[in-house]
């Protein structure tokens, strides 16, 4: 089952790290390569469940030009 990003709904995610105790994985940190959201699968639902997150914090990364740029790059 594809894992979807809690913030943008995309499925382009990768595993960053797993926390272990006695050889058992107790959590996994994921990173969304589309919107750059980072999350751990043990966090409260408010942060990582897209149905419980506040809508204002959801983003659509398919239009990057809609976001401000910090120190705009120089065109070469």
């Amino acid at each position, binding site marked *: 089952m594809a894992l979807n990003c809690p913030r943008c709904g995309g499925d382009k995610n990768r595993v960053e790290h797993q926390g272990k105790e006695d050889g058992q994985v107790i959590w996994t940190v994921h*990173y969304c390569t589309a919107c750059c959201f980072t999350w751990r699968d043990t966090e409260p639902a408010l942060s990582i469940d897209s149905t419980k997150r506040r809508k204002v*914090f959801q983003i659509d990364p398919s239009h990057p030009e809609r976001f*401000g740029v910090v*120190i705009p790059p120089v065109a070469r």
Partner: protein
Amino acid sequence: MNKYSDLPIKLASSVRSMRDFLDLLSSHDQCITWPDPVMPEPDIREICVASGQDVPGAPAILFDKIRGYPDKRLVTGVHGSWANLAILLGHPKNTTIKAMFYDIISRWGSEKAQLPRVKPDQAPVHEVRIERDINLYDILPLYRINDFDGGYYIGKANVVSRDPNDPDNFGKQNVGIYRIQPHGPDEFTLMSVPIHDMGRHMQAAEETGKPLKIAVMLGNHPAMAMFAATPIGYDESEYSYASAMMGSPIELTESGNGLDIQAHAEIVIEAEYIHGRREFEGPFGEFPGSYSGVRRAPTFKVTAVSHRKNPIFENIYIGRGWTEHDTLIGLNTSAPIYAQLKKEFPEVVAVNALYQHGLTGIIAVKNRFAGFAKSVALRALSTPHGLMYLKNLIMVDADVDPFDLNQVMWALSVRTRASDIMVLNDMAMIMIDPAAVTPGKGHHLIIDATTHMPPDPIGGDVEIVTPPSGPAIDALAARIRALQGGN
């Protein structure tokens, strides 16, 4: 003098590192180790918020049982209370904020910086060196600070960089606090704006195509955390400033990528600017207690990590106040405004800009004639910090301690008329004021809560009680606390 006051003074000057400071804090019951296992979220956040309820006396909290991060250590709240700052400055831990303010003022302008050099192979920071397969998530016990932060922020780093156009200039080497969001095992974004020194360096790298190497120091000398954020001139070294302000040495060594770093930092991340790359950054719960939005920010590639054995990752809780951020920078926000005002208005007695980085400030001034305090307020708004930050400014008389909000409220209650309020429309303002209609622009408010003076027909206070005050009363207050058994 009271018998407790000598002890911390001797010890404070012997602090060479954050570890030394944690030991010093522990000896005053101001650093605790959290006894239970914690989950990265939400436990760490909840404990930090709870400790923020005790602004006068909260301890630093060391976590060494973070689930999934065996053998990793995290400390928060190192500068999170007035007691911890008092110990850092060499005072008894119940020293008043006003006394610490005057202490910092008295250190202002000292040029006695001591920056001894340690050879890299003898520097504790290089005890462990990682140059391959770098994974920040494996090295640092990272966690989400506020519910809706976009990632796992590093909020208390001292970042060193040099001007790409003048890389040999020690003075133009900048050390600043910038928020960092990891993006993957060995990349991160760094938030700065063009007016900050770091922003200038990034802009210069972008324009010239020259490399920009930086060192991100974590777990720093407590004076560096406190003073690196102070606005000083572009070509002054923050290391010199912090050492002079502390009156003690800060030992420096060289990072693997050629920057001057603290020899006793817990962890140093060496990184290089990735030209032209911008990644989604944010949101992040910032000091006004509101989230910054998502923007596309400059990105760096980690090239190596050095750390002490069994390092301690120092982080900050920042969000809706009161938080460690407010204690950490409050006095150093107040002191420069005072110094700049004092040059032209020696009548200025004290400046309290503790609230949300000075979004509300209180200035005590010896009033000379009707309207005088308002002119002093206008001058405060034209200081470098006042320009963008001093949104609400309350002016009080010299007989009111601006750090004692009960006294400030008294002045507001009995010395203010509705006509004593000035609203300056459509002025410059920081971008992240949550109340802004247009970010970057807003109103400044001056409330003159000083005495009515001639030629005002009231001509002074109406038979106000003048209780005894001054050093004798302060000494009695200290004696009462000592008799109570505290130090």
